[in-house]
């Protein structure tokens, strides 16, 4: 058996800054993962539907607009509603320090701000995805 880790990298809401998301996508690919990239302006419903069809292990959300408290938690709420418990949700972008504990409480397992080394994200995924 040869399981590959599958990751969905998505940009929710109205935010056109996708450089960070693309860099993370490329780093994860280079770490041997299959990365599904969906482009900009995704709704929580689209993200969850894509995650289901692609059977991903991880959803990586990127947001630089400041709306992360609403848009990130919309995704985790929807996952909970659909009884999907085996997908890890990560967040990245401009996230103020004080929001991180609140996001973690809402099911965003890992939060990675500016300056994070991509190795750190890779290691986090390897540690948290059941093989």
């Amino acid at each position, binding site marked *: *058996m*040869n*399981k*590959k880790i*599958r990751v969905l990298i998505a940009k929710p809401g109205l935010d056109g800054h996708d450089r960070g998301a693309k860099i993370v*996508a*490329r780093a*994860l*690919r*280079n*770490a*041997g*993962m*299959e*990365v*599904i*990239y*969906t*482009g900009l302006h*995704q709704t929580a*419903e*689209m993200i969850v*539907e*894509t995650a*289901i*069809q*692609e*059977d991903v292990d991880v959803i990586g959300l990127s947001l630089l607009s400041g709306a992360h408290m609403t848009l990130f938690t919309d995704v985790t709420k929807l996952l909970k509603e659909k009884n*999907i418990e085996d997908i890890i949700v990560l967040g990245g972008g401009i996230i103020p320090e004080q929001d991180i504990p609140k996001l973690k409480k809402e099911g965003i397992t890992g939060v990675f701000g500016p300056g994070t080394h991509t190795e750190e994200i890779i290691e986090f995924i390897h540690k948290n995805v059941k093989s």
Partner: protein
Amino acid sequence: MNEIAANVLKGEPRSIARLISYAENGDVKASKAMKEIHFSTGKAHVVGITGVMGGGKSTLICEITREFRKKGKKVGIIAIDPTSPFSGGALLGDRVRMMELTMDKGVFIRSMGTRGMLGGLTSAVYDVVEILDASGKDIILIETVGVGQAEVDVIKIADTTLVVLVPGLGDSIQAIKAGVMEIADIFIINKADKSGVDQTVAEVESLVDLECSNKERRTPVIKTIAKENNGITEVINRIEEHKKYLKISKEFDIKRKKRYEAELVEIIRKRLMNFIFDESKFKDGIELLIDQIYNKEIDPYSAADKILGKILK
């Protein structure tokens, strides 16, 4: 019946997605379900879309899907992108051009990496076609990786193969004609608003003249501008015309049998490869043999005889 198989037959998206993963990963849970669903397959029409990189294949698929949806058909899409031979990872980005299909319950999209397969497909693609077929999809669209000269495997699985070209390829049509140009059931010249379109159409038409002079059916050449939904109805009509032609000419039976042959060979190949390379007793033996070949103690042919001797007796 196996639970996941039963849910796939009901068209339940999470089970469809999970079974596809099992098949891709070579998980033992896949073969059990695959054995059961086969008897509910065979209804879906499989369309392969291949062609040059950047030819607009994903956009075309999005538009073709929308057109089939208007007719009430359920559509499954398999979008294949290359896996890096170095890292084993893949960046699967075809969904970017199909975003508007995401929330349509009558559409299921799966992105796949080639995972080491050459030829423009991925090893599990036969399984995925069976799964989507069993789940009640009427049309299955397969987007291959962008082709150069040898990525022609899609004809092993598709009932109808579309080859997508763009204007301005010029002499490169000559370069890719061996193989890729021969597999088309329908030619599409996309981005037909670009200059040089008439010349490209003329070149393709003249190739078709040579290819089809002694055939019953002449391969149509269609101009499209996918991003403006221009020419798409013609593509749909031609796919349906080809489907009818396959049935009347009995070519359908030949194609389907060829697909099952390719699938059978692929299952056997995978099992043999796993048997040889994954079972530890062989693995150690292989490493030892490689050392011996390197040290000129044995030649590669005799080494192969040794390994195969263990399996074939």
